[in-house]
């Protein structure tokens, strides 16, 4: 995974203490009621993530001027609508006709940072990156894309906003998909899949929507790659993803001569700390914090 942003002379001790303070406040010091059913993620990890990102970004804004010009969003909506592949209409008055398959992603990241300038590309636009697996049946057979309401494209704010490029998204894994459930059902290998699927889908929707805001679409493909980052976490385990959108041309007509592919780099989920006991955070993992800091410091070279 490519290194994102240099980190000279960082006061890691201070950043660590900010992170620990945020964690201790949310999980230990503040008096809270018991969490609601299946809402554990709103009780502690959610506020911790918000607090962590706000304190880290405010203390790092001196090093990354892009953060001072950035616009944070709390629980924004991100939507994207596209066509990919074909199907034959099964019943109804249009039976027998060929229609493109329509996809719509409606995402609600926990936190998102948008910036006025674009992040630099990681690999050149036309590089050859390998093959994408092909699935031949309709997407509504998998438990996704079953219901489609409104076809929307939205990055978190309307076109008039000057912070129209994405920097980093932060996603929170909901309570029903937490690790303990997978371990109990003996599906440990599926834990990473959740993080990866979340990362890829959300980042594709975000970068593609950003490209659409700039005027590109499946007939007019992107002339420069769109890059964004994401952190997927459940409060303790963090997984980092970096996405480069090289092509929007996914509809049946345009995909035939399109050699470009989009690419996502990601890490496995690693714990930020071991346990919180009696007002102390035990087993704090500096590497994960450093990774998060490097993500926040990522910026184009000329800034």
């Amino acid at each position, binding site marked *: 995974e490519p290194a994102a942003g240099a980190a000279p002379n960082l006061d890691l001790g*201070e950043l660590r203490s*900010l992170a620990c*303070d*945020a964690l201790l*406040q949310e999980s*230990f*010091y*503040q*008096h*809270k009621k018991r969490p609601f059913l299946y809402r554990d993620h709103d009780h502690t990890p959610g*506020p911790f993530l918000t*607090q962590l990102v*706000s*304190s880290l*970004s*405010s*203390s790092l*804004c*001196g090093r990354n001027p892009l953060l*001072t010009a950035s*616009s*944070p*969003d*709390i629980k*924004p*909506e991100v*939507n994207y609508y596209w066509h990919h592949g074909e199907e034959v209409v099964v019943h109804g008055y249009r039976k027998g006709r060929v229609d493109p398959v329509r996809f719509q992603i409606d995402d609600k990241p926990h936190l998102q940072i948008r910036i006025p300038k674009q992040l630099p590309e990681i690999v050149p636009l036309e590089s050859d990156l390998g093959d994408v697996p092909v699935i031949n049946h309709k997407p509504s057979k998998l438990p996704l894309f079953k219901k489609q309401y409104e076809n*929307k494209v*939205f990055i978190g*704010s*309307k076109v*008039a*906003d*000057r912070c129209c490029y994405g920097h980093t998204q932060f996603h929170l894994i909901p309570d029903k998909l937490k690790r303990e459930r997978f371990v109990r059902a003996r599906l440990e290998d599926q834990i990473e899949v959740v993080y990866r699927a979340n990362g890829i889908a959300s980042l594709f929707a975000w970068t593609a929507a950003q490209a659409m805001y700039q005027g590109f679409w499946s007939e007019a493909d992107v002339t420069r790659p769109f890059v964004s980052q994401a952190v997927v976490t459940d409060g303790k385990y963090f997984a980092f993803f970096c996405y480069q959108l090289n092509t929007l041309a996914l509809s049946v007509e345009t995909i035939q001569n399109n050699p470009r592919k989009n690419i996502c780099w990601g890490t496995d989920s690693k714990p930020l700390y071991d346990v919180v006991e009696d*007002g102390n955070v035990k087993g704090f993992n500096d590497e994960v914090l450093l990774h998060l800091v490097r993500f926040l410091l990522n910026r184009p070279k000329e800034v």
Partner: protein
Amino acid sequence: GVRQAQWLTKTKLVEGLPPQVLSIMDNPAHQLENQEERVMHAISHARLWNTTEVAPRRQYYCPVLFEDLMHLCRLMSAKYPSLTKRMLARNYKIAATWERESILLQVRGLNGMLMNSVAPIPPVASKEEILATEEHVLETFYPISPTIDLQEVNVYKELNDMGFRDGYPYSHPHTLFFLESANIRPDRFRPEQLRAKMLMFAFGNALAKAKVLYGNDPKVLEQPIVVQSVGTDGQLFQFMVFQLNTTDLVSSDGIKNLVWIDSDQNLYEKAQCVPEIKKRVVTKPAGIYGFQPDTFKKFLALYLHGTV
């Protein structure tokens, strides 16, 4: 309204913000770069661009505006690193109890967001001003009882709780934020009642802190405790600085507490989401009208108070 809250908390009212806060506001070193442009961007983001619908509703735009303004304030920590020693606590619970002329009063529960800091705000009023409050006579509302419209409950525990456990490093309440973000007007507090609510909760926080620091006995405080409060409905802002001088609240004589209130400050006059068109001519294009930069300067000054 506020007069009732003043009687209940034994407080004297001073109009306008205290001179320390005003001097922070006027100091040009305490401004962000392109401050006005950034605040306009934040307002436009909250009021115009935040949603896929045509215009965002108050329950969405009020918190978004607040978060954006807080983000702008936090950017000042590049200049003043000790500003990072602040922590925002959402959904926190406060409990404070006191007795006022043989009526037992309590302030409890979830109210707004609290910003805590490691260091306390230094007292705002001088010693002479504090002693001068001794002559001030509290307004009474005879024959209306001062506890009118308060909820009468049988609560068996006289609780005083800051909302956090001991050993919390950010132990001084700095500023309380109240967002009136209900969509329909009857669900929101009127400005007068919002100011009264701000006063009561600022008092509750200061009192709970005083009892933690100095014990439960009623006395005049050597080091008065200062808690600030900001309330808004997304457009109109109320600013308040409260100083607790005494915990001797049973009698109505003696030293009183002080509060400085700056009320009904508009951040902008109108946010036009769709252009107004009359007879096929655009009379008013979309945008934010009537922006008042002073209101954000006061917000920032209250944020910086205690650190600069």
